[in-house]
């Protein structure tokens, strides 16, 4: 026998060891650990899911987050109130205008200022536009994870119309930073209302297209119906909110049930629920929510009141002492800010309650006993954004 080189010996030993290692993992009760790591196509961003498998069936599934933790709650303590808006824009970066609103409303509540009606209405319109931008990405993204890659392109294409409108009004597609304590930074540009209504038409066409292509597809339904069922009481105990909650049959929408001064009650729209609580229900509810949002935008733009954009606020903003909690129905769920103020230029403590933090906590419960492809389906349907979880 010829002398083996050291490299060959090493390779042989490694091959044997690799074999043995996998065999050993198969035979233990704990199952094979598959690390759908921070870099993975299925987790939107840097979320790590440690899955223990028995063949293809999940024994346990633990999400590990914190790869994107930026320390927002600590950072807000050294910022003034207007500076905090630039910071919190980046929590849920797809529906970014919606992040600023609850904080601004909390500060306004403590200062006892009310923004003029025109500002409130435009805030609502921009809020709904961010919701449309955010959820239309979800629709394409979930189809992508199930395998229909073309749908994601259609979602990006049609979302551009909404992003163009947001950019035309605020100057930024992704991080508008447009809300100010007491109102908005600027009024709307000329012709914006007509353009936005045209883009709402396109979004409605997009919804119809997605219904035929994705929702009606038998394979999609076979992959999502009955997968990841979350009953209503479990959803409430975990603090899930938003479309996830409404897909489990709970009829709760903060826009209708806890009004915060924005203009949702001025128009006529429905709250969409679905009794099943599975992944298909979550997809369906969000698709209908896009339609309802387009209705809201159309109605609000029709009746936009004239008037000033900004209330009378002092130049240097000092918020009086107190504590306030404001939560709004953001695209991902319920986002709330608990602002503790000591009468300074900046807040004393801000607790940012984000929707995805609670939505992701339910993953270990809901993925017991499903297959690996179902884990991806469930992750896609729960719809979280990493910045929202980690802050």
């Amino acid at each position: 026998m010829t002398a083996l080189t050291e490299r060959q010996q090493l390779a042989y030993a490694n091959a044997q060891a690799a074999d043995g290692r996998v065999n050993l993992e198969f035979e233990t009760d704990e199952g094979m650990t598959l690390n759908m790591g921070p870099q993975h196509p299925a987790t939107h961003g840097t979320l790590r899911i440690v899955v223990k498998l028995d063949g293809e069936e999940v024994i346990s599934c633990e999400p590990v987050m914190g790869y994107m933790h930026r320390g927002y709650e600590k950072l807000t303590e050294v910022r003034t109130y207007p500076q905090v808006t630039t910071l919190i824009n980046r929590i849920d970066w797809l529906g970014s205008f919606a992040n600023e609103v609850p904080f601004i409303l909390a500060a306004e509540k403590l200062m006892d200022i009310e923004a003029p009606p025109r500002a409130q209405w435009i805030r609502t319109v921009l809020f709904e536009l961010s919701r449309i931008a955010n959820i239309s990405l979800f629709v394409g993204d979930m189809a992508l994870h199930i395998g229909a890659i073309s749908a994601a392109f259609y979602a990006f294409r049609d979302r551009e119309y909404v992003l163009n409108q947001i950019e035309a009004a605020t100057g930024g597609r992704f991080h508008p930073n447009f809300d100010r304590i007491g109102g908005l930074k600027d009024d709307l540009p000329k012709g914006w209302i007509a353009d936005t209504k045209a883009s709402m038409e396109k979004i409605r066409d997009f919804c119809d297209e997605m219904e035929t292509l994705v929702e009606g597809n038998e394979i999609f339904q076979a992959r999502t119906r009955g997968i990841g069922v979350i009953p209503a009481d479990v959803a409430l105990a975990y603090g899930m909110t938003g479309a996830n909650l409404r897909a489990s049959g709970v009829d709760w929408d903060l826009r209708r049930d806890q009004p915060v001064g924005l203009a949702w009650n001025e128009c006529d729209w429905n709250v969409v629920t679905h009794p099943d609580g599975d992944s298909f229900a979550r997809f369906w509810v969000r698709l209908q929510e896009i339609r309802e949002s387009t209705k809201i935008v159309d109605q609000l733009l029709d009746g936009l009141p004239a008037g000033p954009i900004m209330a009378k606020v002092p130049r240097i903003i000092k918020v009086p002492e107190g504590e306030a909690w404001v939560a709004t129905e953001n695209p991902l769920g319920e986002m709330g800010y608990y602002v503790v103020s000591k009468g300074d230029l900046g807040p004393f403590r801000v607790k940012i309650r984000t929707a995805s933090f609670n939505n992701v906590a339910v993953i270990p419960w809901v993925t017991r006993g499903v297959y690996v492809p179902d884990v991806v389906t469930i992750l896609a349907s729960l719809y979280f954004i990493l910045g929202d979880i980690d802050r």
Partner: protein
Amino acid sequence: MEETPEAPEVDEARQAVIDKLTEELGEAVVGSHIRPGDDVWVRVTAESWRTAGLVVRDHLSFRAFEYLSAIDWLPNPYGKNEDAPTDPRPEPNTDIVTGYAGGDTRFQVIARVQSYTSKLGLNLKVDLPDDDLSLATWLPVYAGVNWHEREVHEMFGITFTGHPYLQNLYLPGEFEGHPLRKDFPLLARFVKPWPGIVDVEPMPASDDEAEAETEEAAE
């Protein structure tokens, strides 16, 4: 026009919540506050934390869990780090002034629960003495409090007795310290001075001035 003194608004629904809670818990309710039409705060003792949770969930039907967090009432000894590093540091204020529903200690745990039937929310606060930063876990009450308690543990150092897995959520494993405490400095502001300060460093002098300075220093 004559100004009539306004009668204080009475928020009946929220007052009823406080009354029912006091009825169930008795002595454990040590403080409360209502902002009429808006919100209600109740402070309970640390020993009754778990019972309060069960009462609130079962008897008052606050079935939805919002969040659980903590507040450190110590004023920030570092200020905002917006002062020039050459100025004398201002004396830190060590008075602990707490917020709504009172409080005697530096750390307070605050939790919020929501009722979807009565459309009310309730903020529950509890004082924690500095030498015994521990509280009974709320896991049997709301399953979703798991990650919130882990976060409070790593950020404030508050232990939740009975929680099976109080590991760090965001921070790496060997991290020392509890970042959200006020005496934990925001390192970014120390490493790089706040750029809004004027004249942090002396302006680069011209050659004549530099010579004059060195001559002066030599004298």
